[in-house]
């Protein structure tokens, strides 16, 4: 039992770490390509400097993403051999496609980073585009695998073994569209807000620096558009879950009783013993409305399921609250910046606004972590929803505390070092003073 907990904990840690770099690998190339495109179009050196610096940051993050991803592909087998034995043949294909996307990413990132004066401007920009496409595709492919764990498809069961396997049907399982769309948008929102936050923070110190102003504008655009779309996309995910994983929805919403016209609970703490969610603000009938687009529809509560099929509602509900709250904050900020950009441009560089952007910088990546807690813990006790239990999938190897502790320390060291490098990269800001002409080279 404790070995199972250790395996789950280790898996969670490895993913929580990898996803940070994966998000950067999907979002950062888009930012850097936009900056370079602006440079090629306007010829202003500030954009080139921006593209170069973003690319250098991407290079470091990508390397950590690559090695931590490699760890994951082995650990799936090391920690969950029965899961991989069962699903490798069904859902391995998206991982193979992901491999090709990695190739595209790595090849063209190599050209992009080291090729500024070795290849033509056109090829250089195109390489950046290829990195961005590779990053997005690798995220999409791997999330289809996760979507399959939520809504398994493409096989039939015979004596506990999969038969009649159709890898394409497994890949294009019912959840793949909503999940990949939400993840891709989340990656843009998280990268965009993190980068905008950093540059806003720098502008608080050095308000006239054109470099940071341009950076803020690009990052806020990318992050903002995604942040506005995310709640819309999240609504599709929630409605999908309401139909396909009702126990997960009940845990997310802290819904214990099955009822018609169920209320939406904001905040609150689910209490498993008394089967109530305390301290929540309840909006009558709103959950039924959101989940089924009908205020009187019936929402299943956890009590409708056998006790041993419940996910733990406490972390799932709380994580869901955080994701939605952060998402709402980010979209409000995005709308506000759009309004300012349209009406009161100079306010974009005033202290209160910069402060707000800097404060919201971490929200995107925090929502990503929270969202994955919802998805993964909400799927428990199943590793493959309705098909295989996590407890069955786990390895028989003992002593899992040792690799867990080891990888935790290793990743802590890597995370700190990467953060330190990025911090240095940022804090040595190049001087592009505001000279009215918009970015001529100093000196």
């Amino acid at each position: 039992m404790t070995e199972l907990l250790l395996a789950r904990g280790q898996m969670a840690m490895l993913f929580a770490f990898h996803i940070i770099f994966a998000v950067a690998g999907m979002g950062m190339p888009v930012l850097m390509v936009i900056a370079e495109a602006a440079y090629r179009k306007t010829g202003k050196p500030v954009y080139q400097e921006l593209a170069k610096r973003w690319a250098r940051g991407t290079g470091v993050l990508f390397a950590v993403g690559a090695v931590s991803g490699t760890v994951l592909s082995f650990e799936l087998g090391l920690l969950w051999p029965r899961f991989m034995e069962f699903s490798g043949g069904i859902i391995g294909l998206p991982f193979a496609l992901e491999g090709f996307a990695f190739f595209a990413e790595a090849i063209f990132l190599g050209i992009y980073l080291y090729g500024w004066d070795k290849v033509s401007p056109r090829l250089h920009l195109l390489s950046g585009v290829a990195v961005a496409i590779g990053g997005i595709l690798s995220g999409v492919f791997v999330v289809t695998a996760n979507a399959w764990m939520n809504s398994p498809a493409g096989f039939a069961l015979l004596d506990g073994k999969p038969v009649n396997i159709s890898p394409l049907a497994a890949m294009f399982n019912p959840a793949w569209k909503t999940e990949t769309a939400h993840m891709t948008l989340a990656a843009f929102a998280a990268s965009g807000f993190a980068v905008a936050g950093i540059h806003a923070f720098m502008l608080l110190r050095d308000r006239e620096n054109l470099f940071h102003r341009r950076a803020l504008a690009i990052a806020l655009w990318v992050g903002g558009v995604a942040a506005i779309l995310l709640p819309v996309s999240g609504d599709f995910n929630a409605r999908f879950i309401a139909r396909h994983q009702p126990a997960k929805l009940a845990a997310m919403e802290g819904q214990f009783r099955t009822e018609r016209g169920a209320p939406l609970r904001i905040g609150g703490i689910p209490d498993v013993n008394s089967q109530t969610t305390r301290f929540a603000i309840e909006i009558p009938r709103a959950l039924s409305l959101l989940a089924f687009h009908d205020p009187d529809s019936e929402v299943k509560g956890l009590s409708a399921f056998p006790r041993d099929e419940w996910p733990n509602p406490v972390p799932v509900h709380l994580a869901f609250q955080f994701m939605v709250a952060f998402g709402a904050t980010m979209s409000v900020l995005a709308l506000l910046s759009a309004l300012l950009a349209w009406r009161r441009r100079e306010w974009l560089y005033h202290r209160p606004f910069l402060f707000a952007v800097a404060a919201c910088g971490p929200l995107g990546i925090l929502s990503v972590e929270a969202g994955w807690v919802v998805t993964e813990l909400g799927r428990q006790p199943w590793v493959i929803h309705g098909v295989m239990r996590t407890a069955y999938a786990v390895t028989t190897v003992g002593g899992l505390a040792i690799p867990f502790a080891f990888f935790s320390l290793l990743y802590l060291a890597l995370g700190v070092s990467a953060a330190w490098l990025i911090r240095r990269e940022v804090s040595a800001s190049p001087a592009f003073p505001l000279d009215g002409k918009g970015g001529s080279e100093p000196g």
Partner: protein
Amino acid sequence: MPSLSSLLAGSILGSLVLYALLGGADFGGGVWDLFARGPRADAQRQLIARAIGPVWETNHIWLIVAIVILFTGFPSAFAAISTALFVPLTLLLAGIVLRGAAFAFHAYHLHEERGTGRWGTLFAGASLVTPVLLGVTIGALSSGRIPAEPLTFTGDTASWLAPYPLSVGVLTLSAFSYLAAVYLIMETDDPDLRSDFRCRALWSAAAVALLSVFVPVIAASGAPDFYGALTGSDWFVSVAMFYATAALGACVSLVLSAYSIARIFAAAQVVLILLGWGLAQFPFLARPAITFSSSASSPSTLRLLLLFLAAGAVLLFPAIFLLMRIFKREALSGRYRETP
């Protein structure tokens, strides 16, 4: 027409060969960073970092390709191997993480400080250990001790902590170092640096030659079934002859400073080692009981996987070629532009 599962077995071997020839040399570069000595130690390190920088992440993906084919095409074998070799695989991962991350941090500093620093040391140290663990894993697969009852961990370390897998580990390390030394000669036009790496190439060539006799001798007792399949086969003599020719050719061309020819011979040596291993191992994926056909996924999966691999190869090889042409043109042709 070979069966689907043997085609995929071939693809795994192909990925491993490419990983050894490309990614292996990047590890070897780290080894030579560790052993950089003499008045040109810094210049050697710079050269190594410059050679590895743009390509190591691409080269690394061949390993991921091999793993993905393994778990998609042969999932039960993947599960059994992950259980039996849990410890060496976990250590291998640690080495991969440390090498890659440390190199990225090291290279990041390089362009401003030119120092080596702690990251450089970590990168070099991990480059030394990781190939050994990779070789140990490969050796363990042929040692005949991967339990037939696949998913129960017995705690038995004899499958990998034994002379035969360890000797394969050392062979892997020396082969990677050898490749790196031979490739690095052509990465520079500085005659002193060239002769440094030529000297290293010759030493490691000797080590590889010695080990490629030594390892099969150990296999006779450490992996008897594998040894029987290797020496009893009708292709053994011809592969061994080709191998000896390549080894001799590499040494002669190194002595004669015909570096681009040496590179071809050295690569051929490594290909032949892996080919020999693969042919002797087939049809087993993990001896004594797990074969490719016994652990294969459904034919529909195997067919799609092969199709995707073929399509991917058509798309990717031109891109990899482009990468090599941009960054390795001089090293491949041996012609350097005049540096003013």
